[in-house]
Structure formats: structure tokens, C-alpha cells
């Protein structure tokens, strides 16, 4: 793995499986009386959130605290630094306080990439969502959820998602979740189909490693997992679709549509759900919907990522050994 986690596209198949396997072990900590590991004791992580995102911030914070890291929460929202120009100053200020890693959420696509590559700071950078670009830990927790449900908790260890058919539905254009998932799921061998009205698909999407469809009903019967993306009501005003009613009729998931999915298939949602728009309450509350599970899995994935980025020695990129050493005997 590299020093930073900026994009799901940067992960090799081996990297991704290592993270998923590590997360599987991390998830067991949640079952223990003391939900804490001493691993990142003395390391300081700052959660630098330029955008509101309570759930992602809390998930990272829980992961950091379970690994015993010292956590600083920095919310730029509403303060004088909510303007992008001061990202550099803010980051440098935090680094001067001895921060080992920066978990950053930013409204501007590429901000984490800039932070990691501009020479502003030395700390490891974890992208917690940037603009409409990437949200790699979300893709990892989604893949983790799929592997658990579709392959199995123990059976899944060391496995990818080869041949699984994943359908992602909704506002692909504005979705960092969709971009990250397409990259990661492709790396893991899954077959991805994106379903949306043409207005909500980006120009240039033909180069993505996935299929495109405008027809949800044709896609559902051949899906092992269907991921519904949030569709913001404001999009309506920009003429991306005519009305909420028409959107949900053509692209929303209701009980009737869910019944046409294969028996084993699951419904996923990165949250927050807009019930009545892309998903009905009936589907959201059904056993097949993994939305709550995804939240729990998010903590395990973020623990795994932070452990793999910070839990070992810091190596120059060129010196990082190709393979992880397995635990050797005491000798």
C-alpha cells in the first residue's frame, strides 16, 4: 500500500483484499468487552472536515479511538477557513502540532490529492470524500459488505468479488461513491452496471470499466447487489429530471421491483437515504437492505485502513516491501 489513500483506483487487487481481510479481523474487536486496541497509541490523527458529514466523521473517529490514536476534530464549516484558499495554511498549522495523519473531507475534487502531493505536509492523507471525485473508504466498506453477504464471512477471506454483478443506481454524475465503487469493484473482478437517467451520467463515462443502462427493470433480475445512491431534490431544479414522482417511478426501488431481484441479492445504500425518492421505506427497512450493516462495517474498514497506513514503520515509497510479512515466530 502507498502512504496515502486518495483514490480507490490506486488500490491493487492485493491491497484491496488485504484491507478487507484486515477489516474482518478488526470487526471482531466490536464483539469484545474492551473495544480497543493499543496499536496507534501516541499517534495523532486529525479529522479535517471542510464539508458537513456527521456519519463519515463519526465513523473515522470511532475507528481512530478503537486503535487508541489521539484524535483532533477540525470542522472548517462556518469558520473563516471554510474557503478553499486556506487548505494549505490549515494543513500546515495542524502538521506543526505533530499530526501523523490527516483524514480529509473536502468539497473540491482533488483537494486530498493536492494535500498529499504538493509538499505542503508530510503526514499521511486519507481521503474521506472529495467533491464529486472519490470516497475510497466508502467503496471499501461497500465491497466488504458485499463480500460478507455474497461470499461469506470466513469463506470470503482472501477472496475477491469475481463475477458478482453489481448495479449502482442514481445520481452517478455527482457521486464520488459511484466513482470509487466502479474502480474498486472492477479491481475486485465484479461486473458493474450503472443505471441512471442520461442526464445524471457524466460525459466521458464510456471509458469507465462498467456497463451503462437507462433501464432499471431490465437490470434488476441479473443483479447480485443493487446499490441505490441518494438523489438530492435540488437536482430537479437544474432540470436533471422533471419531478420527484417521475424519478422514483423510473429509477426508484420499491417492494415490487425488489421482488424481481434474485433471492440472494442485497440492497445497499451509502446513506443518508431519501425515502420516497430513490428508495421506499418498505425496501429500506427490509432484511435485504444492508444500510445499517454498512455503517458498522465502515468502522472496521477505517480501522483496517488506518492500521495499514500508520500501524507500521514509515517507509520511503520505493522501499516499501512488495508483500506484507506474515507474523514471524519470535526468534
Amino acid at each position, binding site marked *: 500500500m502507498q502512504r496515502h489513500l486518495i483514490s480507490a483506483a490506486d488500490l491493487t487487487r492485493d491491497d484491496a483484499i488485504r484491507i478487507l481481510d484486515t477489516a474482518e479481523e478488526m470487526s471482531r474487536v466490536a464483539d469484545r468487552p474492551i473495544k480497543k486496541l493499543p496499536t496507534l497509541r501516541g499517534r495523532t490523527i486529525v479529522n479535517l472536515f471542510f464539508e458537513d458529514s456527521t456519519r463519515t466523521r463519526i465513523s473515522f473517529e470511532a475507528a481512530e479511538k478503537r486503535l487508541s490514536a489521539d484524535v483532533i476534530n477540525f470542522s472548517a464549516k462556518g469558520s473563516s477557513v471554510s474557503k478553499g484558499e486556506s*487548505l494549505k495554511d490549515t494543513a500546515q498549522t495542524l502538521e506543526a502540532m505533530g499530526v501523523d495523519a490527516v483524514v480529509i473531507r473536502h468539497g473540491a475534487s482533488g483537494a486530498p490529492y*493536492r494535500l498529499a502531493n504538493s509538499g505542503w505536509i508530510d503526514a499521511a492523507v486519507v481521503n474521506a470524500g472529495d467533491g464529486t471525485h472519490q470516497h475510497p473508504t466508502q467503496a471499501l466498506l461497500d465491497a466488504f459488505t458485499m463480500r460478507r453477504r455474497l461470499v461469506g464471512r470466513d469463506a470470503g477471506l482472501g477472496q475477491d468479488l469475481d463475477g458478482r454483478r453489481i448495479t449502482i443506481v442514481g445520481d452517478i454524475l455527482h457521486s464520488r461513491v459511484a466513482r470509487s465503487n466502479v474502480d474498486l469493484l472492477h479491481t475486485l473482478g465484479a461486473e458493474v452496471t450503472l443505471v441512471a437517467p442520461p442526464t445524471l451520467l457524466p460525459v466521458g463515462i464510456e471509458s469507465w470499466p462498467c456497463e451503462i443502462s437507462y433501464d432499471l427493470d431490465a437490470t434488476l433480475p441479473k443483479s447480485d447487489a443493487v446499490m441505490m445512491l441518494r438523489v438530492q431534490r435540488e437536482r430537479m431544479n437544474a432540470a436533471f429530471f422533471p419531478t420527484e414522482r417521475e424519478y422514483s417511478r423510473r429509477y426508484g426501488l420499491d417492494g415490487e421491483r425488489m421482488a424481481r431481484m434474485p433471492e440472494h441479492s442485497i440492497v445497499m445504500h451509502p446513506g443518508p437515504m431519501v425515502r420516497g425518492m430513490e428508495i421506499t421505506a418498505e425496501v429500506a427497512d427490509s432484511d435485504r437492505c444492508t444500510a445499517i450493516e454498512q455503517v458498522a462495517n465502515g468502522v472496521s474498514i477505517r480501522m483496517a485502513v488506518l492500521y495499514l497506513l500508520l500501524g507500521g514503520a514509515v517507509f520511503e515509497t520505493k522501499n516499501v516491501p512488495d508483500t506484507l510479512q506474515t507474523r514471524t515466530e519470535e526468534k
Partner: protein
Amino acid sequence: MSKTLIRGAKVLGGEPQDVLIDGRTIVEVGSGLSAEGAEVVEADGKVLLPGLVDLHTHLREPGREDSETVLTGTRAAASGGYTAVFAMANTFPVADTAGVVEQVYRLGQQHGYCDVQPIGAVTVGLEGRKLAELGAMHESAAGVTVFSDDGKCVDDAVIMRRALEYVKAFGGVVAQHAQEPRLTEGAQMNEGVVSAELGLGGWPAVAEESIIARDVLLAEHVGSRVHICHLSTAGSVEIVRWAKSRGIDVTAEVTPHHLLLTDELVRTYNPVYKVNPPLRTERDVYALREALADGTIDIVATDHAPHPHEDKDCEWAAAAMGMVGLETALSVVQETMVDTGLLDWAGVADRMSFKPAVIGRAAGHGRPVSAGEPANLTLVDTAYRGSVDPAGFASRSRNTPYEGRELPGRVTHTWLRGKATLVDGKLT
């Protein structure tokens, strides 16, 4: 006034000749000219061109002197081989009155590095609603003939029509920044494969092409000439080619960066590549080179757009758009057009001096290198290759996309009406 003999210069890339300057004028061009009483510059096979003319420069003064001033900008121009630059109107205050354009014009004259020909705004405050006093700017000491809201598009079709018509009265031209505003709301880069991947707002080619198509038709309808700024797409080339074939009086410019760079560079999220119009695809780059070679695109203009460091040392979305270009333009043109065999040096003189002077009506510039002409000249060491070091720029700003890139050619001397402004690569 003193005499200068430029010995053994390949005039417009031809056979080596001597060129004798007396005072402000070229007095003789030939072989074995006498050096008596003259300072001798051994050209030693370097290429001698007429002083370059840039129809599209942002000098930032008044208002943004932290990024450039008329002094630093004209020094940069002289360094790059330019003897005349047209200064865009998007200053603070906007150059939409006779007062502002005269001030900029006088600063240029006063510093003496390069003639500054102000461009007047088409509309008051660049707001696109009300025509600025175009006639007053023309009649001012600055003698404005080129009008542009550059940075913004004159998107209202009626205002554009009126402007095209109005400037006919004094032989003016409207230079359009072709960008349909609604189609480019939130635009951050070229819309296509790379923007889809990077999640940056797309600036579609059609937003440029639709305005160009409209404006050439408007120009035809009212019988005016129109100039298209920084044309950037293969589709725009097709429209201009079609318009010219119909006899429409349209001229077009391309920037050096659009001849060389593509949107793949945006993958670095380094705002030094953020520019408007955005870097396009490889296909567009080749179409632009071909169009410049065949004359569909008339000229190269730099769109020199200085920005202070902090406006580029940030995340992409927060960064300012634009690149400096005066000091690298000729090198990029040599790299993309001359060294590729698309254009000879006479062609470069045509695209970077003769034609821009004609379009902008820059008297005394863009003249042949022959006896009796004003001694506006630039001498280029075309054999030179070196990497670009922004620290050596005369411009106040350093926002070049070429830092560290190896480029051919180096301007060693520039003469403005016989006075050397650049000698051996050093400003006088």
C-alpha cells in the same frame, strides 16, 4: 541616433544576411554591409523575425499589480521577442472608458519596453448589458481598435450584434471570448473522459463552438469582421474553416498552450494547468496545429494571464484560471509548429507578427524586414534547447505550465524602433 549592424542573421529563416539599423529604421538589408560607425551584433546564424505582436495579453494594471504591472508585463514581452502587446480590458477598474485605456497606453510608452495597445471593453464593466463608449476609446490617445470582454463572453446575441455593427464606423473589431455561460456553470476543465474520472465540472467544447457559430453568422449578417479569441477545439476549427469558405470576415487566434498541452495534465490536480478555455484533448491539439498551419487559424496569441503564487498554490477548484505565456510563446511555437515541419520561420513571422498587427491595426508593427521599415525586430537562437526556469522570468508571476520542461529556441535580442530592449537574453 546610433547605428546597429546585425551580421549574418537568417532573416525569416532564409539565407544569412546583414541588417543595418540607423536610428529607428532599418536602412539596409544585404550581404557584407559595412559596420562603420555601427555597433555590431553577430547573429551567427540566428533567425531574425519582425518584432512579435501579441493580440491577447493581460497586464493586470490597474488593479492587480500584485500579479503584473505594465512595466513587468512589457519587460516579459520584450524578453519573449514582442514589440507590441494588446492589453486586455479586464482590469480594475475595467478598461471601458477613454481614461483607463489612455492610462495603460501611456504607461507602456513611458516604460519603453514594448508598445502597449489597450483593448477596450465591449460592455460597461464587462457585464454584457450596455455598450461601453467604444467610439470614445477609439478617439482617445490610445486609439483603441480592438474591443473585447475577454474573461467573459458577450453572450447576449443582440449586444454582440450591435457591437459588431457599431465598430464598423471606425474599423474596429470585436474579439469574442466564446463561452456559453449556462453550459459552463461550475466548469473546471474540459468535459470528457478525464473530467468524468476526476469529478471536476465539465467545460464542454460545444459551449465554445455554439458561440463561434452564432458570431460568424452574426458577422456575416451585419457585414462586420469578428475575431475569435483563444480557439481551443477541433469543432471550432471546422466552424471557422466553414465561415472563411463562405467569405465571412472572421479571424481566429490560438494560444501556445493549446498547441502543446492536453487535459491529461489535469490528473495532477495542479492548478498551474487550470486555464480558460481549458486544455483539451490530443485530437484538438492536432486539429489546432493543422489549422494554424493552413491559415484557418490566423495567429498565435499568448493569453498571458499572470496570477500571484497563492492563487495557484491551492486546490484546483479554488485556483485562478490562466497561465503566463509571453516568455515561452515562441519556444512553444517552435516546438509544436516549426520543429514538426508544419510551419517555417516565415510562417511564424506571419502568425505571430504580420497578421496580429493587421487584425489589431498596430501601425509600425508586423512589417517586413526590409529597408525603410521601423526597426522592430527579434533575434532567435533556434538551436538552443533548455528547460524552463520560471525564476528567470521578467514577469511578476510564475504560473507557467512549462516549469522544468525542455523547450527549443531562445530570444536573444529584441529591438523596439531601433532601441535594443533585450541584449544577449538580458533586458536593457
